[in-house]
């Protein structure tokens, strides 16, 4: 079976090379058959990599401990759920997983567009095949997941050996979220390959018009959505598992996942400048290129141990491959840009400072500044060692000082930008759109300040959050009122109708609202409290309105771990409300101890209790309790964000299909969608 997997991988590489070469030859000789064949090869890569993945999973589920990768990341007692997830627990497997996800994207891109854009797709196919070749080379020759364990026998010949039981999956990964967090993040990272391929293809093929932008935007939204989910799940995992009471530590690997997300966000906004006004063409192309390169850099940081982090600990030579690929990508991008720079000439100039254009420009400016700051801080140990010879790291204060103002400014633009007109906004329009939301925000701020809300950044965040929410509500209300008045429906139905007619615009507003929710949650961290105390049975600690009574300590064991557990009774305002059971688990296979946090989460705050270990002096258990306000809003905002993004990807509904009930489908009758009835008025795209 290991032969089978290796064989599938080598074949996948050969087929990808064929897709690449045949694609180029097809473009040069203008042979449609060859181009078609290259696209088919691109799709076949998916099948072959799938076989390799299936083969590796088979080893996990059959506990085949002669496979080095399986022996290193699984053991017999590991629950089946985690045996599946062990695929991406280590370097070789996660790179294979990476190739697989990429091949899925490539497969669907080729499938969806197989009869479209004959001038663009061949180029895009070549770029995608190029990226696939790189990862498949790594899978085959640098970090093969199909290595077997072998030891020399008496005669000195190598013999296949197996060990009795594997080393087990790292306990930190034995958590349900770790089964979905890496796939989401990887779907984000790999997904940005598709916009990259289209951008480079459009440039190389000098594809006329802004059509590629439309195709790219949707794929960018898919990747962006996965990246957002991945980042938030990662934050949630850090919060729920690492047991330090926070969700974001500006760790290099967290930062690595954030930077392409930032440039992707910038692109999703600036792309509108190109669609509507024919501006920022060079900028957009480079944003897509940068996003892709940051994804590769992110992998480099995670995998190579260039910067030390909780995540990346390995000193591995694979980094050189990524550096090489990054350099090659940059050279190709720059060459493509330089040869075709006249193709990217801007159609328009900025007309006014108070306009949609300038709000997008400022949005992009601060997003990129934030991206640069995060990248700079992350790479500073490396940079300072090169420049001055001493390795200097920067901590959270650096990142927070720069990024908090940036985030607040962006929040302000979130409220202002969508309501500014293209080209120039009149003073009247400004008053009409902003007077009430601004008044609402300021009023909230004043009331909050009177009630002793004094953290300045959190206060600004609160004011802006109210302001942005009110502008969004006003937008929905204004549009829905028109529809409701005309069609005689109620306001709520009219809002649904409005949203479906211009999904992109109103889905975008929902995403903006999600960002508001997330920001409110983050602003709550300014009011975090924590307390830590040695506790015996019968001892109590108090935090906020809660007091925690220690009832018991006991031990639980199964064949995967042994755990020490505290039984705590929680009182709120003197009334007993619940029990919490923070644990420390000692995992037998890996001989590692991990904390299991107990959290009681409400929209208002999280009571987060950690069994921190035993006191160095007395050997008594130490309980660390945190009271973190509003954290739940972040996770809730994440859900809203996904819904909003999903909505924005839907095609706009045609007005007529909604106003009349769809005729019942029956045999012999045409499907309702095929026969448009009544007046078909397309919702105007002019406003988004």
């Amino acid at each position, binding site marked *: 079976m290991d032969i089978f997997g290796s064989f599938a991988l080598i074949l996948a590489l050969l087929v990808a090379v064929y897709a690449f070469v045949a694609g180029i030859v097809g473009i040069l000789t203008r042979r449609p058959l060859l181009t078609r064949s290259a696209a088919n090869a691109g799709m076949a890569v998916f099948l072959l990599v799938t076989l390799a993945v299936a083969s590796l999973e088979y080893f996990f589920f059959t506990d085949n401990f002669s496979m080095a*990768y399986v022996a290193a990341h699984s053991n017999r007692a590991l629950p089946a759920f985690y045996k599946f997830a062990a695929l991406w627990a280590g370097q070789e497997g996660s790179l294979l997983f990476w190739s697989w996800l990429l091949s899925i994207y490539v497969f669907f891109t080729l499938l969806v567009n197989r009869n479209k854009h004959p001038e663009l797709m061949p180029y895009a196919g070549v770029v995608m095949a190029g990226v696939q070749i790189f990862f498949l080379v790594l899978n085959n020759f640098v970090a093969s997941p199909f290595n077997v364990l072998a030891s020399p026998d008496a005669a000195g010949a190598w013999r296949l050996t197996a060990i009795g039981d594997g080393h087990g999956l790292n306990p930190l990964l034995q958590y349900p979220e770790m089964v979905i967090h890496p796939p989401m993040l990887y779907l984000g990272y790999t997904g940005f390959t598709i916009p990259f391929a289209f951008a480079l293809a459009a440039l190389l093929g000098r594809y006329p018009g802004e059509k590629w932008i439309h195709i790219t935007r949707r794929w960018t939204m898919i990747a962006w959505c996965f990246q957002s989910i991945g980042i938030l799940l990662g934050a949630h995992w850090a919060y729920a598992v690492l047991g330090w009471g926070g969700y974001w530590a500006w760790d290099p690997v967290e930062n690595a996942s954030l930077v392409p997300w930032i440039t992707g966000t910038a692109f999703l906004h600036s792309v509108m400048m190109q669609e509507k006004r024919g501006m920022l063409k060079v900028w957009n192309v480079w944003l897509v290129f940068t996003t892709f390169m940051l994804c590769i850099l992110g992998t480099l940081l995670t995998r190579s141990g260039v910067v030390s982090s909780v995540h990346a600990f390995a000193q591995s030579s694979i980094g050189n491959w990524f550096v090489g690929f990054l350099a090659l990508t940059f050279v190709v991008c720059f060459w493509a840009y330089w040869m075709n720079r006249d193709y990217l000439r801007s159609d328009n100039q900025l007309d006014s400072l108070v306009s949609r254009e300038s709000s997008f420009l400022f949005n992009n400016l601060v997003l990129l500044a934030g991206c640069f*700051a995060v990248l700079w801080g992350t790479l500073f140990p490396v940079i300072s060692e090169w420049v001055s010879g001493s390795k200097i790291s920067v901590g959270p204060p650096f990142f927070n000082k720069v990024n908090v103002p940036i985030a607040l400014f962006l929040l302000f633009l979130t409220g202002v930008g969508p309501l500014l007109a293209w080209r120039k906004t009149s003073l009247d329009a400004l008053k009409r759109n902003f007077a009430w939301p601004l008044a609402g925000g300021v009023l909230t701020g004043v009331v909050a300040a009177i009630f002793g809300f004094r953290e300045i950044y959190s206060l600004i965040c609160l004011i802006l959050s109210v302001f942005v929410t009110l502008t969004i509500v006003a937008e929905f209300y204004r549009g829905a009122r028109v529809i409701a008045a005309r069609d005689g429906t109620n306001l709520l139905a009219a809002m649904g109708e409005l949203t479906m007619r211009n999904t992109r615009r109103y889905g975008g507003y929902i995403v903006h609202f999600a960002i508001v929710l997330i920001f409110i949650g983050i602003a709550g961290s300014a009011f975090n409290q924590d307390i830590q105390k040695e506790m015996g049975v019968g001892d109590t600690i108090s935090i906020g309105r809660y007091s925690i009574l220690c009832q018991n300590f006991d031990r639980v064991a199964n064949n995967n771990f042994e755990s020490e557990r505290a039984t705590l009774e929680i009182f709120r305002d003197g009334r007993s409300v619940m029990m919490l059971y923070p644990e420390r688990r000692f995992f037998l296979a890996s001989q590692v101890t991990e904390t299991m946090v107990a959290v009681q989460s409400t929209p208002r705050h999280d009571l987060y209790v950690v069994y921190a270990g035993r006191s160095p002096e007395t050997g008594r258990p130490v309980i660390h309790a945190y009271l973190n306000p509003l954290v739940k809003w972040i996770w809730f905002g994440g859900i809203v964000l996904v819904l909003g993004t999903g909505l924005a990807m839907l095609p706009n509904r045609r007005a007529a299909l909604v106003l009349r009930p769809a005729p019942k489908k029956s045999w012999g009758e045409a499907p309702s969608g095929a026969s448009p009835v009544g007046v078909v008025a397309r919702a105007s795209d002019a406003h988004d």
Partner: protein
Amino acid sequence: MKARGKFLVGSGIIVVTLASLAYVGFTQSKTYYHTISELSALQGGALRQRMRVSGNVRTGTIERLVGSVNFVLEEQGKALNVSYIGRDPLPDTFKDGAQALVEGRLSSDGHFIAEQVQAKCASKYEANPGEAPAVARPAQSSSLTRVPAGGRQS
């Protein structure tokens, strides 16, 4: 061109503000990595910087006292006396012979006052030579256990 000029001025203000904030944040949080042998060569202001030092815990030197845990870190034959004064329990990986990374400041008598201790033991995840070829650290993992001292972090 007028709008463009205004935009550039606005951008300039934003960039300068952010750069100055970045500088302040940088001076507040920069931490130097030093090896134990480098410490003795430090002079003047460099001695008062916040720094990180790594080494192995010398076997038998861990003393658990009231209010601190003392131990000796060694690296390439050089030794450093460390007092850990953080209030968080030390990680379970912190044992005789473990690789440790301490963060804090040097006191005037050459003692290192650590506010944070991270420790890494020879975990089973490390590949034994000749066994698995370069089994890397899993993506989201470490035997490097975090002990954030000083409570609040966000």
